[in-house]
């Protein structure tokens, strides 16, 4: 059994070719720009769509735990995940994200698009959240993916101990691994991540399988938009061949609203991807392929 937040088919931004991306629940970080905040917690997460809600309060009346109040607020500590509120909402304004699925079932679902993977050199991407959070189930999942001849990519924060990485490595063809900052304190303060763990994993991969790594850097205003070149240099030093600069976007904003959490970048607009173009030349200078976008 593995706890899945979503399975997205024909994912075109999560690795080469046509892919199916399996988003897993659970993340050790809390990046304030996150596009998938509903994946952070292991428990199912309630999303409430204000645009659909007609304020009938049926959900509130149905909840014996009094976990729902209006203006809409969901009390996670009281919720027992009976999902009566979701069933009762005729507007489909409430949905819970996250359900346990047998690994066999996940594989079955993924294999439905195998023909498309084979034609396009695509495959499966395990994302999240942080896939390594459900480590045992994740390991089983990637093992079974490999047994079924799939190309396996993971989108990962790198924020876990090296032994886990070592165990999973044989079953993973491509790491799309985030590098969000090179300043340990800043990284810790804003995202909660531990830079030492991350760098340790990068160094290991760079040593044993540099071709399996694409470094991903979400470029975030006022956080790391001034250190892109440093990240490129870091890749050059480790002889990692490719870095993707992911321009800041606000496409996850609606999810934050649906979780009744203020999105820190409410006032920021989408980053114009063209402003990152100069880094492609800088990359050439350092012998690193810089791609804008994933």
């Amino acid at each position, binding site marked *: 059994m593995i706890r899945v937040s979503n399975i997205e*088919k024909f994912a*075109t931004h999560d690795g080469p*070719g*046509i892919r199916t991306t399996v988003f897993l629940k659970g993340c050790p970080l809390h990046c304030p720009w996150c596009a998938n905040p509903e994946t952070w917690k292991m428990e199912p997460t309630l999303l409430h769509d204000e645009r659909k809600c007609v304020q009938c309060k049926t959900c509130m009346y149905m909840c014996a735990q009094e976990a729902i109040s209006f203006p809409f607020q969901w009390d996670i500590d009281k919720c027992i995940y009976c999902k009566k509120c979701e069933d009762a909402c*005729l507007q489909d304004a409430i949905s819970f994200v996250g359900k346990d699925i047998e690994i066999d079932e996940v594989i079955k679902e993924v294999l439905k698009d195998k023909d*498309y993977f084979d034609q*396009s050199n695509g495959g499966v991407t395990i994302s999240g959240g942080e896939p390594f959070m459900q480590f045992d189930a994740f390991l089983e999942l990637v093992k079974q993916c490999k047994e079924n001849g799939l190309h396996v990519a993971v989108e990962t924060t790198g924020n876990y101990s090296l032994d886990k990485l070592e165990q999973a490595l044989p079953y993973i063809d491509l790491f799309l691994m985030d590098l969000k900052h090179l300043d340990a304190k800043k990284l810790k303060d804003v995202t909660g991540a531990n830079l030492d763990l991350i760098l340790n994993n990068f160094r290991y991969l760079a040593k044993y399988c540099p071709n399996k790594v694409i470094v991903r850097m979400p470029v975030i205003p006022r956080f790391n938009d001034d250190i892109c070149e440093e990240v490129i240099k870091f890749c050059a030093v480790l002889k990692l061949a490719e870095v993707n600069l992911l321009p800041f976007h606000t496409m996850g904003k609606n999810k934050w609203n649906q979780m009744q959490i203020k999105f820190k970048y409410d006032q920021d607009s989408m980053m114009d991807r063209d402003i990152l173009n100069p880094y492609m030349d800088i990359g050439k200078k350092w012998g690193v392929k810089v791609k804008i976008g994933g």
Partner: protein
Amino acid sequence: MARINIDGEQNVEVSIKIPCEKSYSEQLEIMEAYTKVHKENRSKHKAIREVECLKVLFPRLFRSVESDDLIAGRLDFLPIGFGSVTSIGGVGHYCVFHKLRAFKKHLKTDQERTRVDALYDYWQEHDVKSIYCQDVLNEDTTGRFIDCKYPFMATARLSGMMLDYKKLVTLGINGLIDLIQSYPTNEFMQASLECMHLFKSVIRRQIELGDQCYTKDKARNCDLDLMKSDLEYILEHKPATFHQALQLFWLYALCAGCINYGRMDIVLGPFLKNDIDSGLIDENQAYRYLKSLWKMIENRRTTVNGRIIVGGKGRENVEACDLFTRICLKVCKDTRYVEPQFTLRFDSNTPKDIMDMAYECIASGATYPTLYNDDVNVDAVQYGMRVDRKIAEQYVPFGCGEYVIQGKSVGTPNTLLNLTKILQLALNSGYDPMDHIYKAGPVKVLPLSSFRTFEELYDQYKVLLDYYFDLSVYCQKHSYEVMNQEVSFLFNSILMDDCLGRQKAILDGGVEILGGTNETYGNINTSDALYAIKTLVYDQKKYSLEELNVAALHNYEGYERLRKEILALPKYGNDIENVDEFANDLYEYVAKGIRNRGIQHGMDYYLIVISNNQTNTDWGHQTDASLDGRLKGVYLNPANNPQGYAANSGPTAVLNSLSKFNVKYHGGSVQNIKFTPRMMYEDKEKVKILFDTYFKKGGCQLMVTVVDHGQLEDAQKHPEKYPDLIVRVAGYSAVFVNLTKDVQDELLSRTLYD
């Protein structure tokens, strides 16, 4: 005998027709002359009467050459006249009554209006379609096309005729005359001969019309000189050049009332290549001529027809055909017209550059070419139509997607079934919940409480379907009998195998392959409803069948939670095995049921088509809430695609579901998909592979609309900003803002992939 009212719209008409060039009084005069000849020749053989009637129309109804036409041939039609199809005029000797009434309003004097009344009265008894309708329409089961109160609609028309233009351009007019004269004669052959002479008078008239167009513009005059000399040439010779062949083909198609043209690469490609190789013209000139043809086709405004088909198997001079194809692709991309319906047949041997050009054309938002997969379709047609492979290679989709064999088969869709409505008869003791009229004919429909198992209910539904299949095959065949009793469709017959050889008109035993098609609607609403019934009533036992039905009868008002539960059940279009299998099981039952009846009744083929124009929307208005969760009056699912809200697992899943039907049982099925321009351009290679894989998995057809997020919504609010936003409705493309709001809403409901 009480007359069945057959008045009203007879076809989908989105594009606005260009008004007749003649004055109203002249139009009246022509219609009177036509009527007089029709009356006077009543005792004559139908072929003789037909050609006499055609002489009233031709060449008189040809209109002026427009200032940028590069070939001649523009034809008006009137509310009374002769034709093959309802999109242009009417069928056989026709009167379109509502258009005649509208015409009457334009007349100034009572005297003129009285003359119209006399015509109206005469044609009530003689309009071919009316004669047919009196025979088959009734108050409960069978309605006219388009009257959506009925579970079944029937019409008489000769749609989708794609003639053997190769024969025309190879023989020329005199060659055809020689051919006609080489056979034993009879009235049909005499009339055919006269048709050819009438055709020559049409060409001579074009020369006169062209002469009226000379201006001070030297370049224009040069074009007119060519037009004139080529018209003069083809009067007495078989065409020698691309321009001559194009000219001859076009005028013939107009005279025949054909609005689908077919494999023009085969007909015109060799002339084109010859001219280019010899240096007579270059590709730019060919482009200009084809662009002019494109405009002439657009100006006929048939909404759902205008097929030009290129590519695929069964072409002799492939290089010449591909040369023609490449120029057409350029014209199509540049013109962005809703017609012609430009269609690419392809297979694994199609050159990559042609596939790439096609992709670019689609990505630009032209909705064309629509794509037909010959690696799948040729085998399917061979089985479906029971023809040999060489013949199957000449299949062509017409109108909204029905197949015929070019020059060899009739396959007009004269019958239409609403599968969802018929299921509702099964659930309501034979009564239609929309109007409480009993529509089950002689079928005994049991009360709901008697269905102890799902299979018993499904069997009851199948008995009703069988009854409607029987009606369908009778009405389809009878449409041929009535049309054949009244007319010979001479211009069509002359270029259809093997009418001349047999000395028989097309429906008189002349055509080699007498087929037909039946358009089925609500396929997926029905299979999803059956799935919901089986799951909730018989598997989970959560509700009784009565409870579900009562909820639907109340349009789910007061039963919203139940509807939510139904909507949450798996739906077709998400690559879910058991629900797709339901759709497939129903598809095979219906498709085989129709096909077998056709064979039993002596037709060469009779196949279902899962296409639609906008009948899914129109019929939805008159169809009660269904147990897939669809509300009363809401559009039915388009073609064999999922209902708008139901597909939410991405494009691979929907294409996987679509490719599960075994294509050999149908005679055409269309698949819509909608992408953003971003995806079409940024993910170009992946989208190409997506299409390619779908086709490799057995996908038979695909047509693609490219629009941006919010664009359609904005176009509803600000139509003036979107004069050329083209969308694929189903079997036709349209400028979005010209569609009615209900059809726009159906399009909006479809999933947009980004």
